[in-house]
């Protein structure tokens, strides 16, 4: 299998993961699309490192989260390089209305957290253990625990889901 084919397979297998990272780190559709493209580019750029990585999933989470953090810090409004009219990029339209408000509320709550806590909450929702979260984010397991209890408290203090917008 050629490098290009391996890369395409990796992105196709993990496109949902990349998409979820963009949702957690941005609330504007255009910015999410741009971030998606940046993560794809960064993954291609370091694809040789990925092949050597002992834990490929950890590597991909890190690249995605690091790209989101740096990209959003630098980001200024720029025109999109490639138009993404792909169906999963319009996911919100296919969600049934009953759960839509709750999902929007959930995203809004996550985006209210600071950059690192957003990543921790995202990994927690992805079903990662505290140990795995620590390995991916580079903090100790006990620190993950402390941060998670702080996040729980913050989320509990919020009232029931209020209407919010996923993107404009």
């Amino acid at each position, binding site marked *: 299998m050629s490098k290009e084919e391996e890369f395409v397979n990796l992105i196709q297998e993990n496109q*949902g993961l990349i998409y979820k990272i963009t949702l957690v780190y941005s609330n504007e559709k255009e910015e999410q699309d741009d971030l998606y493209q940046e993560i*794809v580019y960064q993954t291609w750029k370091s694809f040789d490192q990925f092949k050597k990585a002992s834990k490929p999933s950890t590597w991909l989470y*890190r690249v995605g989260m690091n*790209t989101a953090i740096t990209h959003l810090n630098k980001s200024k409004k720029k025109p999109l390089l490639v138009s993404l009219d*792909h169906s*999963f990029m319009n996911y919100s339209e296919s969600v049934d209305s009953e759960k839509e408000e*709750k999902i929007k509320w959930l995203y809004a709550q996550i985006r209210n957290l600071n*950059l690192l806590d957003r990543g921790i909450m995202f990994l927690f929702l992805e079903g990662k253990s505290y140990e795995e979260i620590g390995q991916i984010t580079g903090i100790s397991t006990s620190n993950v625990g402390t941060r998670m209890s702080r996040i729980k408290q913050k989320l509990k203090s919020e009232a029931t889901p209020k209407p919010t917008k996923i993107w404009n």
Partner: protein
Amino acid sequence: MELEEMQSLWADLSQKIEKQDKIQKELLMEITKQKFRNKLNGIRLPEIIGSIICYGYAIYFMIRFSELELWYNQLFALLTIAIMIVLPTASLASIKAMRSVKIHGDAPAEMLDKFAKSKIRFWKVQKYGMVLGAVLLITIMPPINELQGTSEMMSRPIFWMLYIPGGLLFMVLFSRWVYNRYKRVILASENMLTELE
């Protein structure tokens, strides 16, 4: 909403996302190629051109240093050479440090820390650059006029009447702009570091 409910909502969402069509190979490769071209265009040309001009002046003063006869012009020339070398070198080094944050190797917590610190360093260099720029405004004129045989111009009051206020006005406006940016960037970066504690 309890965390368990959030997790189940998330799992449901993930499941639905996974069912979506796979992104096409052609589109993926097009994204990658376009991004690559864009990055090549994004090399910081102004900084590079500015540095070449500074180094060029430093070399010019070094080559013609022996032609300076007045002791204070020799001193000014030395100061100018030092600033013209130190300033662009520090600026390029801080930009390089900021751009070399490793997206692919570091953990997010580590990267956030490095990113915030390199941003603070970059703007500190810009702040010192501003002060040195003001010094340069004064030190560069006397030796350059002696070398070009235009010292006479400097003895005319009209020259200083235009040069000093004009130069100062430029420095004040430029400094205010840098200072405002500096304050915002430092604050944002420091907040980022506090979040990690």
